């Protein structure tokens, strides 16, 4: 088991390393001058330009720049934003907490709503089941930006129940502000959780030990909680982990639509301004988080079913 974790972690580091090369290389071979943003108003004297180039290491060969970037990252220094001149690590910390809150809120919605839908679907087959499946099917086909715009139109602009932008101050206010964005992000994934819950519940309900429990007089609710739903958790976690990458990617769209200053909208703004240090840092961070989630789910699978580990090894 330990060996398994070690192997996975090494694999993770190797992939991360490769990805860092890809991200760094891609952006640096991009056309356009990263300093354009600084000199937007003018005043691009040769001396000023030279000073800025030195500040951002742009006067060094690209391998050296990559080395600086990599080695600085190990000490927690992600460079400086070209737009703000501020340390990228500061930017990421301030924006990251917002995105973290949004993602967690979204996951809560996905899991609760998904499980409820799945449960109801399984318990009431027939018209209820079918309608729910249609609804969730359409939801899954709704990209986050479409959901965002529709939600803004109906609930923020139309009914005025929710604010149209920002993250809010204080816990309750933040929850209020982040509800629509979290829902918009959750829409596309609720269906998957609902389905998995439904299948798992249907599976479990048919099992003999559930019948036995019923005969013994154990209440429905307890049966559901103890036997049935427990079984749905692993596949749910698997789905969340594997879709986490695309969920985080979705924050770019949702944060932009709702004017939330999180990592997603920061990434989009940085791309528009060619603020490379920020783009690189956020890109790598997203990949790292996703990769960690995948490893965790792999470990979970390995723990649950050692047979799977071996069979996977054989497949490789």
């Amino acid at each position, binding site marked *: 088991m330990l060996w398994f974790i070690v192997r996975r972690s090494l694999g993770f580091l190797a992939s991360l390393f490769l990805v860092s090369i890809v991200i760094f290389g891609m952006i640096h071979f991009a056309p356009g001058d990263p300093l*354009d943003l600084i000199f*937007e108003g003018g005043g691009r004297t040769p*001396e000023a330009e030279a000073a800025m180039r030195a500040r951002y290491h742009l006067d060094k060969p690209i391998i050296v720049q990559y080395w600086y970037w990599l080695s600085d990252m190990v000490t927690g220094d992600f460079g400086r934003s070209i737009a703000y001149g501020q340390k990228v690590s500061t930017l990421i910390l301030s924006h990251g907490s917002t995105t973290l809150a949004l993602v967690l809120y979204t996951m809560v919605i996905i899991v609760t709503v998904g499980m409820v839908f799945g449960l109801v679907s399984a318990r009431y087959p027939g018209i209820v089941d079918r309608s729910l499946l249609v609804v969730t099917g359409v939801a899954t086909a709704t990209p986050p930006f479409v959901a965002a715009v529709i939600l803004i139109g109906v609930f923020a602009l139309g009914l005025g129940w929710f604010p149209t932008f920002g993250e809010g101050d204080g816990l309750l206010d933040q929850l209020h502000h982040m509800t629509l964005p979290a829902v918009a992000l959750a829409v596309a994934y609720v269906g998957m959780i609902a389905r998995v819950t439904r299948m798992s519940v249907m599976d479990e309900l048919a099992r003999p030990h559930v019948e036995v429990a019923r005969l013994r007089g154990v209440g429905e609710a307890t049966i559901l909680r103890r036997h049935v739903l427990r079984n749905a958790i692993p596949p749910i976690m698997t789905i969340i982990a594997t879709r986490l990458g695309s969920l985080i990617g979705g924050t770019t769209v949702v944060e932009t639509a709702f*004017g939330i200053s999180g990592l997603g909208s920061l990434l989009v703004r940085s791309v*528009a*301004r060619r603020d490379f240090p920020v783009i690189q840092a956020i890109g790598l961070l997203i990949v790292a988080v996703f990769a960690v989630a995948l490893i965790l789910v792999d470990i979970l699978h390995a723990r649950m079913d050692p047979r799977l580990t071996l069979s996977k090894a054989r497949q490789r």
Partner: protein
Amino acid sequence: MYLPKGRRRLIAGSVALAMLAAGCSADNEDSPTDPSEDGAFQITESLPPASGPVESVTWTVSSEPDQLDPARRARNIPSETVRAAICESLWRITPDRKLEPALAVSVDSPDPTTFVYQLREGVRFNDGTEMTADDVVASLSRHLDPEVGSVVADAFKNVESIEATGPLEVTVTLSKPDYLFNQQMAGEAGRVESAAFLHEAGADYGSPDFGLNCTGPFKFEHWEVGNSITLVRNDDYWDDDNPPLAERFTFIFPTDGSARINALVAGEIDGGYNVPEGASRTLLAADSGNLYFGPGTQAYSMIANQSGILGDIRVRRAISLALDRQGAITAGFDGFGSVARVPIGQYAWAALGLDRAEEIYQSLPDTAVRDVEQARELIAEAGVEGSEIVIAYTPQVPQMVALANATFAAVEEIGLVPVMLEMERPDFSRLTASPTAKDEAGVDLWPIALRQPLADPLETFSIWHTDSVYNHGDYSNPGYDALVEQALAEPDDQARAALTVEMAEIIAEDLPWIPISVTAYTLFLNNRLAGAPATIEGLGPWAGRIGTA
């Protein structure tokens, strides 16, 4: 073949329903009419003053400034707006566009190439240190430093030396007479910062971590990147006649134009200048506050690249004749604008008196008159039918999109082939920042918004001097250059203004930039507040004047 239609019927049904619902609401939206018909578009010269202090004010700017250093962002409105609450210059511009003492109390000009400034005593920076001549020298001189690469270096182009000739005296020596320089000391070029702070911050001056350390009504407290900049009242502010009324002043940047408007309407944010014209109706109807249209010089024009087809004046005139300016104003500004006759609004001459300013403007050729026929003839005469015209713009500024679209339509109508070139902000800015960018990108026309922060119209009209760094289209006219030189050396304000009228006439004829529209400055102010200046032009200590209604 059995085709179950249940699903599709459901979808089709909901589409139809949605369309009906949406269609109904869209139908209630009238096509934009002339706003002056509603009586909505009236210029407010000034607002009633505030009656007392207020605990906190939240303010919005159109986007987040990325830098507060005037050397880098002197011409960036969000940056300027925030900076003007914290920093001051040697002079201030009064509402009737005259200069009054601020950090300088007087100036003496013993000869045409020397200005001797006497500075105010007892002025303190945010950190408590007292302002001396050294600070002024440091602040001004850095604009001359090539390593700083200041965007207002042009204001100092005739400066030979800046010296502290006394603890509160600064002498500026010029290489030739330049009366515009003294006017510049009322604007961004004249901003005074503590020399020690400049030294300490170095290249980080004006960045989120350092901020500014100036003499104005508010102190820089905290900049939460992506969210807000918080200022606190400067209780040691030197101007007892204009004490800052708000205890906390917070700038908030919604990342989205619509979000900004909604926040104002909902009363979540107290006010803002220059709200997008498209939102004017929404704001006029809002109960939480009032929308005012203030006197402003801002005008939108299309810069013509003289090195392409646009070098032929017939082509420029043709495009100008074919432009549907009113249509562009409707699309880009929801009708809240007027047709521009030159690339600046009539308030450029406000220092001469508002009536005289209007008189001057009306005497210029009327660009509202369209003549597509004649335009086509001009194109035929120039022999350029079917030539490509590349129109560049950036989607980040919606008003510019409308102007580019209008130009596109005009160019197409007269028999040329317009090509739209969307550029990202850094590339688009290079068109003005770099002299070669426009030719490299092959751009013929691109929009610009021009303002005149100073009281002197010469600031605007010196733009089209051959050597000016702001002469983005490379217009060159020796006769015009001579006029500009003459005006620069003219000590009398009235005489100088008269010369600028002559310049305006040439610009209206030659169309180095094709003027399109003049827009009023908008101000939205929540009902609970009062005292905000009706316009942000001049940018004196505006923020301090805002207090309870």
